């Protein structure tokens, strides 16, 4: 080259280099700039010598390969990736790891344990429903669903459905294959995530002392004051009197919307100075579920247990009303 042969950069060269740059988008800026620096001058001169530019994609690939750079990982710029392809890809990648010699034994064990997962997700589904519809209660092995007999039935039905889905025998025929796979993926994810929001009993060594959902409420309840309060202090027991002013043995209370006026059992447990132990409430029960809006709570002393177990409940005693009686009342207008 001599000093005076000025290159003319034609628009098609600029466009071509831009297109090549686009095909190298996955490289880091420095590598890409190194690769393309001076290319416009070379191409401009080539063009002036009568060569044609060709296909930018192929050109980028050749440039990349000759420079010893890795192939693009994915077609990053492709606008539509078929969902099935995406799932296949993810599955292939996962299996490549899972079936590698290192993980193969564990993976094979997991595969044989698939039915356990089918049962577990069925349980999660029914339990989530149980928690969503019923009054606050224990998480139990067999969900209660508030109606006697319904819980076990629903659980069995859910396990059957879950297993059939797992075996690939049951699914709405109207869904396309990829939609089915997404649906199963979504449901399985939900089955994994949902338990995080259930109030699972956590052993004391994991944090809370005597963490028990019946006493401490679900995790969500701790975000804000729950339970009943009077002038800012938690109400720990309620005594009802009839119109004649005599104590009523048991009442169930609800608010204007029919929501139970529940006392948190955690608040209701009190330290007993005399026995140097706890006096814990023994709530009334509806089947297995504690009813925390039925008053007054009976109490039992305990030195070990943080809550009223079945054995303790047998020893519980009804509380003495703070007042033996109230003045009788008359209803307005009578």
């Amino acid at each position: 080259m001599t000093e005076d042969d000025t290159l003319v950069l034609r628009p098609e060269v600029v466009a071509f280099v831009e297109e090549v740059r686009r095909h190298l988008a996955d490289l880091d800026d420095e590598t890409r700039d190194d690769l393309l620096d001076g290319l416009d001058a070379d191409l401009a001169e080539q063009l002036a010598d009568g060569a044609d530019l060709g296909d930018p994609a192929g050109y980028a690939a050749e440039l990349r390969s000759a420079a010893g750079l890795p192939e693009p990982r994915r077609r990053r710029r492709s606008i539509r990736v078929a969902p099935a392809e995406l799932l296949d890809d993810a599955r292939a990648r996962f299996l490549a790891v899972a079936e590698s010699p290192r993980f193969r034994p564990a993976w094979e064990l997991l595969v044989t344990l698939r039915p356990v997962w089918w049962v577990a997700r069925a349980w999660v589904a029914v339990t989530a429903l149980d928690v969503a519809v019923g009054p606050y209660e224990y998480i139990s092995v067999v969900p209660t669903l508030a109606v006697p007999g319904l819980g076990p039935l629903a659980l069995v039905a859910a396990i059957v459905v879950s297993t059939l889905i797992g075996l690939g025998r049951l699914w709405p025929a109207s869904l396309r294959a990829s939609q089915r796979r997404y649906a199963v993926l979504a449901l399985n994810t939900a089955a994994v995530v949902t338990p995080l929001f259930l109030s699972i009993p956590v052993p004391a060594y994991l944090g809370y002392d005597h963490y028990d959902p019946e006493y401490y409420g679900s995790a969500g309840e701790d975000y804000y004051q729950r339970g009943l309060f009077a002038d800012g202090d938690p109400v720990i027991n309620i005594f009802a009197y009839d119109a004649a002013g005599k104590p009523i043995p048991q009442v169930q209370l609800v608010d204007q919307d029919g929501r139970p006026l529940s006392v948190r059992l955690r608040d209701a447990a009190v330290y007993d100075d005399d026995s140097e132990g706890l006096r814990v409430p023994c709530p009334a029960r509806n089947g297995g579920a504690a009813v925390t809006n039925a008053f007054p709570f009976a109490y039992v002393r305990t030195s070990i247990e943080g809550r009223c177990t079945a054995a303790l409940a047998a020893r519980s005693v009804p509380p003495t009303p703070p007042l033996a009686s109230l003045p009788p009342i008359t209803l307005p207008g009578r």
Partner: protein
Amino acid sequence: MDTTQLLRGVLDVAVLAVVEREDGYGYDVLRRLRTGGLTEVGDASVYGTLRRLYAAGALTSYVVPSDEGPHRKYYGITPAGREQLALQAKEWTSFADTVTSLLPRSTGATS
């Protein structure tokens, strides 16, 4: 025989040899390779090879600006590049001799 595959293996040494003779920019190197007989060589292959040899330290590069139009990126050989060239040239000669000695005399000698 597909010469592009053969070329792939010897492009490094060919590019080094050309640049060793005289510094050059991409198209200049390409042209000299083609003039030298490697007519099939692709431009992107040469440019990519230049960038790779540069990244590996076998070549150095400098930019020659122009008042108008794009600048040219020149490549020159480094001491490391010279060593690599010497080594690969030796390897190539020995390899080529070996293959030649394996071929039937009539074809090997004339082609």
